[in-house]
């Protein structure tokens, strides 16, 4: 079986900047958890865009769930991102005009594979969204139909995690998801995230500057080490 995420010989540079990102190798098997330490300026957003297929590297190869994100057309990259990736950002993860359930099931609007998987496992999109919301401790909020903007930041991040997990993507990418949370919420968020990634077998790539979290991961790497950052 192919790796959940495989990056090889990746090189990227912005046309008008001397900075460049180099990543010789990064492989995550299904169920792996990897902490990637990246202080600001080390190219976290760039790496995220490269894996998501919204940026095209100058050289190298990226595969998610055995499907190439490099050397294929834009629409193909969009489809593979929809099928295989769940992404959680530091903040502004949710669309304020959608309900909690609609926010969670949003990826299924763009990925038929995830829609089919969610419906097969839970009997319906709404049921799938409810399941993840409940697993992340938001059953009450979902039932009450609370508007997204009335949730606390910690709750919003958990909704984002539910959205990343729905339909069983191969990889969950987290970009500083806990930076806006206090210690208690942070730990609770990580517990739930780990449990759900394990349950669905998704590989977790967790990018953060916060070394305090790193100890909770079996494997840690620094983006600076891993990527050659040339000044």
């Amino acid at each position, binding site marked *: 079986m192919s790796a959940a995420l495989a990056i090889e010989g990746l090189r990227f540079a912005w046309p008008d900047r001397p900075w460049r990102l180099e990543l010789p190798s990064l492989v995550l098997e299904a169920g792996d958890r990897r902490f990637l330490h990246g202080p600001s300026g080390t190219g976290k957003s760039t790496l995220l*865009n490269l894996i998501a297929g*919204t940026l095209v590297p100058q050289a190298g190869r990226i595969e998610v769930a055995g499907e190439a994100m490099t050397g294929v057309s834009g629409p193909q990259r969009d489809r593979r991102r929809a099928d295989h990736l769940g992404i959680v950002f530091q903040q502004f993860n949710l669309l304020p005009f959608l309900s909690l359930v609609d926010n969670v099931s949003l990826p299924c609007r763009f990925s038929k594979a995830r829609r089919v998987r969610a419906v097969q496992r839970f009997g319906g999109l709404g049921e799938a969204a409810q399941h993840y919301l409940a697993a992340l401790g938001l059953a009450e909020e979902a039932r009450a139909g609370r508007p997204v903007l009335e949730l606390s930041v910690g709750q919003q991040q958990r909704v984002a995690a539910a959205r990343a997990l729905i339909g069983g993507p191969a990889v969950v990418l987290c970009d500083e998801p806990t930076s806006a949370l206090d210690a208690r919420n942070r730990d609770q968020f990580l517990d739930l995230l780990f449990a759900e990634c394990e349950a669905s077998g998704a590989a977790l790539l967790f990018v953060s500057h916060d070394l305090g979290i790193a100890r909770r991961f079996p494997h840690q790497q620094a983006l600076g080490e891993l990527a050659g950052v040339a000044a």
Partner: protein
Amino acid sequence: MNGGLLGLAWASLKNRKATVLLTVFTLGLAVMLLLGIERVRHEARDSFLRSVAGVDLIVGARSHPVQLLLYSVFRLGEPTANLQWATYEKFKALPPVAWTVPISLGDSHQGFRVIGTTGEFFTRMGYGDRRGLRFAEGQAFNALHDAVVGADVAEKLGYELGREIVLAHGIARVAVHKHDDQPFRIVGILARTGTAIDQGVYVSLEAIEAIHLNWRGGVPLPGLRVDADRIPPELLRPRSITAVFVGLESRGATFAVQRVVNEYRGEPLIAILPGVALSQLWALMGGVERALWIAAAAAVLAALMVLLTTILATLNERRREMALLRAVGAGPRHVFGLLVAEAALLTGAGVLLGVVLMEGMLFAIGPTLEARFGLMLSPGWPAPAELAVLGGIWLGGILLGLVPAALAYRRSLQDGVAVDR
């Protein structure tokens, strides 16, 4: 999966209710204006055509055809001159002539024109496909001082059968001289026609002669009173009339009869085809109609620009929204589609609101328009031509929506899934 885009656009619009409603309302008003002008224009034409339907020729003293049409049919403006009764009788006897309805104008009652005519007016004139006029109450005039009033006259002045009325000399709203020595009695009230017929007071040609017996040069002779019951019949024979409506045995004879009238040497006359004179009238009005239409179209264009501005203004604050959509799998083409869908929904809602506003307006003021102007504007489905205009506006809105869509497309390519958060 693009069905989802429309749903997303809808949800996003609902989230911005205030701006969206204002924008849609602006477009709705402009669309209502444009549609309203089109409706009134068409209905005015139809209404005028209804007024002259069934009349093959109108004969009167020589003047511009439009002028003759206006004063004979629509009671607008002043007749230039009369035609002799003897001349009328000559034309009446022409073989192709099936019927004639002479009218004599010049007097008024409370601002409504008095029309001296014959009983045939009620059997021959009509509107639309209808020949002959229906009486709401009573019947045609019979005795010398009988009068029939149109629906508007009865309604506005609150007249009922048997009521006595006094005619005034001339057509000024405030009459200087009144024919108060010979009052008339209302014996008939016409059913509403939606034409100028509703605004007339009808008496016999003989009655017109009778009330002017003691008049010379437009003023009553002082001290000379007429005993209405003892007027010798020969004095009541009409000497001249203002115009004649003519019906022919067959349409084919129209131009022949018209030539005979126009070349008549006894006095300068003109025979007009009502339809032709109407199109001349519309040609005169064409510039005004076009100007109105252009003004309304400009209002629609301005409203569409407001709509474009509204969408463009939201693009910046929605960068994160777009990046988030991309993160969950949307391609730039989805972002593009989302904004086009938004423009389509906004314009569509505006167009629909315009139709609803106009129909509501017609529902509210339609009866008034019909009563006051004879315009039969009732709520109803838009005509095919109107649907084409509405479709054009919708398409225009969608085309304008391509501008913000293209901008968002380009930006979402640059931003990817991670804007500077």
